[in-house]
């Protein structure tokens, strides 16, 4: 080791040997080594090595380095000047071809940039936290439903225990969210506050715009996000101002604003609106037992200095497991603890149930789709370029012949063509960048209403763009360059070269392109059909006439019901503790054979009628005081897992016996993208009412909605109204479906535009080169029919092949994609593929027709006068 360190580093020498003229090598190598050992004596070894490397690089001087043959040829600046000039002239001379090439590539590059922006956004989610590799979410495995599942919540006491028992754990932060009403002056809104330990702002990187983060130690302090600060206080600095938090009927607490967070990075899943000290539960919720092993907090984060400590921590956590298992209800028994670093939490959240970071499965799969689409589009555009370049080569043959005869080698011609290609692609890149920046990205952001935070200052972008430029130019340019340059100068100048129309590869490329277009169109037709189906698909209950309102307690429920029942358009009213599409609780059912984890909704006897749920068998709850206390109605999913004759089956919840009295037809509580979970309805205690559901007379939902809001405001001017139309509970489901439709149409439109452009360019060139033939035909009496036949016949077989391959391929890809993305999709039929074939054929026919028309209308004399 020691002796090796005394030698000069190896790599600069290799570098030198590659570049330096051989005859100088021995002398200079010797000199360098001598100087190195001299430097070792004078300075440190490290410095000597550094100086050695630096000197080596400084040796790169024109008269010392090898004359690399290839480099020399490329270094003819004036030739490049000529290439540029020729490319610009070429672009100007054939505006239509140039447009097809540049526009096609620009669209594809724009999409590629968009895909990049989206991927960057997804992968950077939650990556801005400085401690992302030392902060961990505490998770646990539990078996509630026959299989071990990872959960992101934690038993309440564990945070305290971890803090006290482990010196390696530097800080602990528990997080709980609660819905409250915030009041400042006349600003009153429903809000979600985050109860956290004061370490929150040390663990997560949310710098404050105003105020100090350690002030959160005071239980009377509150920290606001920037958005909330603007919502309540405008642009002013609210530090020191008081804000009132109403957490129950007539119960409130005044907090002092001690901090306002700076604007959050856009790519995040964990953030906050309001932060208050975790200890506030002592005032706001006296029943909140900090030591209850049966209750769970939303999240417990820990910070360790050395991630290796986690292994020993994990092993010592066994005792908590025993502690929890001994007091916990059997269903909630934990089998083991685990930790997930903040850095990978977003990526993994798909597999962690109930975790604080949102599931991201869709984003990660979307990246794959977008990259695939961008690559397809790039391929289409490149193929266009290749086809047109080969077809136009005839016009450039003379130029190449002259170049070759005055000394250009084949290599030089290839370099020339590639240069031209780089020019075209650079144009396309500029336009594509503009398209991406001003059109694709903002369009997408507007549709989904979020910001990708795409900026030109991103360094990776400037690595990515040249790579795209290089790959695209080479992919599209190398074949034409090689092809065109292979002709002999003598044959060209003799005029005996024959090519162009009958190039097999051109046809293969065109076929390839049409197949792509056909695949895209098929897929987008299928998706449009599917989205249509989804927007019409029944939710399993009457979502269009329903409305709901959130109520704080029973008495306000009664008051609101009294008002609403007088409204002429109200058909029925129900009260409930949970509501379809809004809330439920998790329960474990104990059957003699096994346990089931199910969603439980506590409702009243009118709920069935009000929501329009349908009974499959059995009966609903009877509507009199004290009825059916030990009865449940289940959904079809649960009924199916229970086996035949579910009615009358008996099971236990927390050692209380219940009986199944009815089964409902399948309905979707949450959107179609989610699987229907097993579910039970139970009668609610009247004191637990939190929702008021209303069924309006068909068509009068909006009137009733206004009346509901007005009634609420009259009763409770202090508390803002919260509620809405039942059809909006899935987060504006119908608007989203519209967006999917639009996006697929845009893709299909782009694909067919590119393919049509390519076809148009090819057919036009073909027709132009055969103008003499057509003129002779016309002079001899050929009519529309004959001309069209002779234009079309060389493409017909191509079209048929393209459609025969494209449609099934598109059908297959489309059905796979639909099955992959939608749990409850339409019945997939061939109709989509058929419609796509018709559309494609029509577009192809129209493209051909424009050219045929041109020939038919032209005067044969003009065609014969050429040359």
């Amino acid at each position, binding site marked *: 080791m020691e002796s090796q360190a005394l030698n000069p580093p190896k790599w600069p020498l290799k570098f030198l040997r590659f570049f330096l003229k051989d005859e100088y090598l*021995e002398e200079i*190598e*010797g*000199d360098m*080594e*001598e*100087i190195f050992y001299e430097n070792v004596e004078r300075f440190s070894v490290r410095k000597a090595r550094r100086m050695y490397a630096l000197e080596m690089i*400084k040796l790169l001087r024109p008269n010392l380095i090898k004359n690399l043959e290839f480099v020399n040829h490329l270094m003819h600046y004036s030739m490049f000047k000529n290439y540029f000039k020729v490319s610009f002239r070429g672009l100007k001379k054939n505006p239509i071809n140039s447009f097809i090439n540049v526009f096609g590539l620009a669209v594809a590059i724009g999409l590629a940039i968009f895909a990049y922006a989206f991927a960057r956004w997804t992968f950077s989610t939650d990556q801005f936290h400085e401690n992302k590799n030392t902060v961990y979410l505490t998770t646990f495995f539990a078996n509630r439903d026959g299989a071990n599942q990872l959960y992101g919540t934690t038993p309440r006491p564990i945070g305290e225990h971890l803090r006290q028992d482990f010196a390696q754990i530097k800080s602990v932060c528990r997080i709980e969210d609660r819905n409250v009403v915030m009041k400042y002056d006349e600003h009153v809104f429903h809000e979600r506050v985050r109860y956290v330990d004061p370490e929150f702002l040390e663990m997560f990187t949310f710098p404050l715009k105003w105020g100090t983060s350690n002030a959160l130690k005071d239980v009377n302090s509150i920290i606001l996000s920037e958005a909330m600060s603007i919502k309540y206080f405008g642009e002013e600095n609210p530090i020191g101002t008081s804000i009132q938090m109403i957490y129950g009927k007539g119960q409130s607490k005044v907090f002092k604003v001690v901090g306002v967070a700076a604007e959050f990075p856009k790519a995040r899943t964990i953030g906050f609106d309001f932060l208050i000290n975790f200890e506030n539960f002592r005032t706001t919720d006296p029943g909140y037992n900090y030591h209850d092993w049966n209750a769970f907090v939303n999240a417990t984060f820990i910070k360790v200095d050395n991630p290796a400590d986690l292994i020993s921590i994990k092993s010592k956590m066994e005792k908590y497991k025993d502690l929890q298992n001994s007091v916990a209800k059997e269903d909630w028994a934990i089998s083991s603890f685990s930790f997930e670093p903040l850095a990978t939490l977003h990526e993994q959240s798909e597999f962690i149930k109930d975790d604080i970071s949102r599931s991201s499965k869709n984003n990660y799969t979307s990246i794959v789709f977008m990259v695939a689409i961008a690559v397809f589009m790039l391929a289409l555009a490149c193929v266009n370029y290749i086809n047109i370049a080969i077809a136009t080569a005839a016009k450039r043959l003379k130029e190449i012949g002259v170049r070759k005869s005055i000394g250009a080698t084949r290599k030089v011609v290839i370099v020339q063509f590639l240069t031209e290609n780089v020019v075209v692609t650079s144009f396309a890149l500029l336009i594509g960048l503009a398209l991406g920046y001003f059109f694709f990205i903002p369009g997408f952001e507007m549709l989904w209403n979020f910001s990708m935070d795409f900026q030109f200052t991103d360094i990776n972008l400037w690595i990515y763009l040249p790579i795209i430029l290089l790959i695209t130019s080479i992919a599209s340019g190398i074949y034409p360059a090689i092809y065109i340059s292979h002709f002999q100068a003598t044959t060209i100048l003799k005029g005996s070269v024959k090519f162009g129309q009958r190039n097999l590869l051109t046809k293969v490329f065109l076929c390839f392109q049409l197949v792509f277009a056909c695949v895209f169109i098929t897929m987008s037709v299928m998706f449009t059909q599917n989205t249509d189906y989804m927007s019409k698909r029944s939710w399993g209950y009457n979502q269009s006439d329903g409305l709901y309102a959130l109520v704080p307690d029973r008495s306000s429920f009664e008051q609101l019901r009294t008002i609403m029942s007088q409204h002429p358009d109200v058909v029925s009213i129900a009260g409930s503790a949970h509501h379809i599409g809004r809330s439920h609780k998790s329960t474990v059912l104990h059957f003699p054979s096994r346990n089931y984890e199910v969603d439980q909704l506590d409702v009243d006897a009118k709920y069935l009628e009000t929501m329009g749920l349908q009974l499959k068998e059995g009966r609903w709850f009877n509507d009199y005081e004290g009825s059916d206390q030990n009865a449940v109605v289940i959904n079809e999913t649960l009924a199916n897992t229970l086996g035949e004759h579910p009615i009358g089956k008996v099971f236990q919840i927390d050692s209380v016996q219940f009986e199944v009295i009815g089964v409902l037809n399948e309905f979707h509580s949450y959107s179609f993208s989610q699987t229907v979970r097993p579910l039970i309805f139970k009668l609610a205690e009247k004191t637990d009412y939190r929702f008021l559901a209303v069924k309006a007379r068909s068509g009068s939902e909006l009137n009733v909605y206004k009346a509901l809001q007005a009634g609420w405001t009259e009763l409770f001017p202090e508390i803002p109204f919260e509620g809405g139309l039942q059809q909006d509970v899935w987060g504006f489901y119908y608007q989203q479906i519209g967006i999917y439709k639009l996006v697929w149409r845009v893709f299909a439109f782009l694909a067919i535009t590119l393919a049509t452009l390519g076809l148009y360019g090819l057919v036009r060139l073909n027709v132009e080169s055969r103008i003499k033939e057509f003129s002779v035909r016309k002079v001899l009496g050929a009519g529309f029919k004959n001309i069209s036949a002779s234009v079309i016949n060389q493409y017909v077989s191509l079209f048929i092949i393209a459609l025969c391959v494209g449609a099934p391929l598109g059908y297959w890809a489309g059905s796979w994609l639909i099955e992959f993305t939608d749990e409850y999709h339409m019945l997939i039929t061939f109709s989509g593929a058929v419609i796509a074939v018709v559309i494609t054929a029509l577009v192809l026919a129209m493209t051909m027709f424009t050219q045929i028309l041109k020939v038919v209308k032209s005067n044969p004399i003009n065609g014969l006068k050429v040359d």
Partner: protein
Amino acid sequence: MKKTKLGEFEELVLLTVAALQQDAYGVEIKRELESRLQERLSVGSIQSALKRMEDKGFLTSQFGEATAKRGGKRKRIYATTSHGRKVLEEMKDIRTQLWSAIPKLAFELKAI
């Protein structure tokens, strides 16, 4: 007369070669020049000047002995050609003539 043109740095290197005689090889030339100019020079600059002057015919060179310090690689000893010496002398003469052509007044005026 581009071939005979001698740059300022080249002239310095050439003079050093002439002064060092038998010791005139890369490292020694560098060392000598560095001590006289009081600044660090890179191997690349010296080598490229030497090679350029060899092309122009101011210098000749031949391999000398190898030492262990150089990892067994031979030195290349440079020597000035008669043409080189002639050009050096010409440069010196031109300089002396120019110096003597400067009127003394010019310096005195500047001093004021």
